[in-house]
């Protein structure tokens, strides 16, 4: 709870820094506050308190995800240094990021449908603005609009779903809903099923799973790269945290009924996302599709819904997000045109960092001994435990397709440069971002037990 309050106050402070003229220090304040919030979350570890008349519940699940968001934000700050350069917009961006972080923390800790909705809105509205934050680029404006419209649309689905669930069970509280569903399990009104379908649809929109993914590539491509990095890591992680929390605490008893929906969505997301990524020549777009594909694997963990899914999701999200942040650091340096060809000769100029990026790429492809492998492995394990054998086979095939395009990145980095090509060069912050993400990736791969079984 203290974490949430700190982050919310941080957002207000960032806004007021404009008024009271301490804009210069806002980055320091931000880093201090986020670090402090992480510390507060760590201090609360092992406790489980409910606040605001059972509106939020800070248990280990919520704390673990909060820590994940905050740590990712700190890493993210390294790669987005230039994003905060402009004096005029600096405070606004920090405020928006803080608010969306607050939304993310609410999404990992809600225990009431209304809080769930508030969390999703705080998270998304900030993200809509951030997507359009590059005002001079028409593609950024396009991204904001394309993000906003489906986002608002999917919010409608979520609301309708909640209304139906409320109509059937008479409560917004997750545990009350769960108790009601258990009590009436043998004779559920169709309203509950309809509500669940609406909720699933809305959430699939939010996590950009197929067949509701169409907005994602353009949005990811058009937004400023730091924002894309933020969206495809922290926002995605928050949406999944909410997805799982909602379904495991309310609807696990009727899992047999909705699991097939998720499994089908997962299967087409994995296959479709990976196949489409193969055809991309633009690294940023490729990562956008790969991010869609990763949603598929995560959906599988949600669909498995057993004791292993929670750690599997946390681990997968951590591994994927860390590696993504490193990759987006590279994308950020590629300027406006992120063609794969531009990477040629990169390894010749920066052998060390090329090796680290290779590491990150291989982790995303799911190759041992890196974190990504254990993430996939964990997901497969939990799915097989729930007897989802064929989806695992699909997932394995999909990750093979994934290997192909991830290898293309590596291959391009190590190819000889074209005669007059401008080779990507990294700043000091970029280097530290890549170094940190690569070290984390390696560490999580060698010692997965570090975070795998904490929740």
């Amino acid at each position, binding site marked *: 709870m203290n974490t949430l309050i700190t982050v919310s106050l941080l957002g207000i402070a960032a806004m007021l820094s*404009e*008024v009271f003229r301490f804009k210069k220090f806002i980055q320091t304040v931000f880093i201090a506050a986020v670090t402090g919030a992480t510390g507060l979350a760590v201090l609360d570890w092992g406790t489980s308190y409910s606040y605001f008349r059972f509106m939020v519940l800070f248990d280990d699940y919520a704390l673990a995800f909060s820590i994940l968001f905050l740590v990712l934000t700190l890493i993210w700050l390294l790669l987005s240094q230039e994003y905060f350069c402009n004096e005029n917009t600096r405070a606004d961006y920090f405020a928006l990021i803080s608010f969306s972080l607050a939304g993310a923390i609410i999404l990992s800790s809600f225990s009431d449908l209304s809080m769930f909705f508030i969390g999703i809105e705080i998270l998304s509205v900030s993200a809509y603005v951030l997507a359009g934050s590059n005002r001079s680029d028409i593609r950024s404006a396009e991204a904001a609009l394309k993000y906003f419209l489906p986002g608002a649309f999917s919010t409608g689905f979520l609301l309708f779903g909640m209304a139906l669930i409320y109509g059937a069970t008479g409560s917004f509280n997750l545990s009350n809903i769960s108790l009601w569903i258990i009590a009436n399990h043998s*004779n*559920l*009104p169709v309203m509950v099923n309809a509500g669940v379908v609406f909720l699933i649809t809305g959430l699939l929109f939010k996590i950009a799973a197929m067949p509701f993914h169409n907005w994602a590539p353009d949005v990811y491509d058009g937004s400023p790269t730091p924002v894309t990095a933020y969206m495809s890591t922290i926002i995605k992680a928050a949406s999944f945290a909410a997805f799982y929390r909602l379904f495991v605490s309310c609807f696990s008893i009727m899992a047999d009924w909705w699991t097939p929906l998720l499994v089908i969505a997962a299967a087409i997301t994995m296959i479709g996302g990976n196949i489409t990524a193969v055809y991309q020549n633009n690294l940023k777009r490729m990562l956008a599709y790969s991010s869609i594909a990763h949603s598929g694997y995560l959906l599988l963990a949600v669909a498995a819904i057993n004791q292993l899914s929670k750690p599997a999701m946390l681990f997968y999200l951590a591994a994927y997000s860390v590696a993504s942040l490193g990759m987006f650091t590279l994308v950020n340096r590629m300027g406006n045109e992120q063609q794969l060809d531009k990477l040629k000769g990169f390894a010749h100029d920066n052998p060390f960092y090329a090796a680290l990026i290779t590491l990150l790429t291989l982790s995303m492809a799911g190759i041992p001994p890196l974190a990504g492998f254990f993430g996939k492995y964990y997901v497969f394990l939990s799915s097989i435990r729930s007897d989802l054998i064929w989806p695992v086979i699909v997932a394995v095939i999909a990750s093979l397709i994934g290997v192909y395009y991830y290898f293309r990145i590596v291959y391009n980095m190590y190819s000889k440069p074209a005669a007059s090509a401008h080779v990507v060069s990294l700043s000091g912050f970029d280097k530290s971002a890549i170094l940190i993400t690569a070290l984390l990736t390696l560490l999580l791969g060698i010692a997965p037990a570090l975070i795998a079984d904490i929740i």
Partner: protein
Amino acid sequence: MYSTPYDYLPMAIMAAVAFGFVAVTMAATHLLGPKRKSEVKLDTFECGIESQQNARFPFSIKYFLIAILFVLFDVEVIFMYPWAVNFKEGGLEGFIEMLVFIGILLAGYLYIIKKGALKWE
């Protein structure tokens, strides 16, 4: 699950009413309304400022900003009503909570002013 087609009946009725209302009103206005085709009558707005062009025309963002900010603060004020009604039950705690709420709103207001969102020129 025991979902029979019968369970969907309320929804079907709801949908029928919703669509029916649209269809009926549209049809009714066409059929019942008197039809005068003078130039003034065909104008977009019959009264007020003369319209310049069609709606797909760039206009000053200031109008939009003022409007959206008005809506924002207007909606926030709605929260005052339930508080006012339950003022006694809320007690001191409720009062402090409301102060926090208004404080946050005030912070937003300061921010708007500082950003120059309300400056017309």
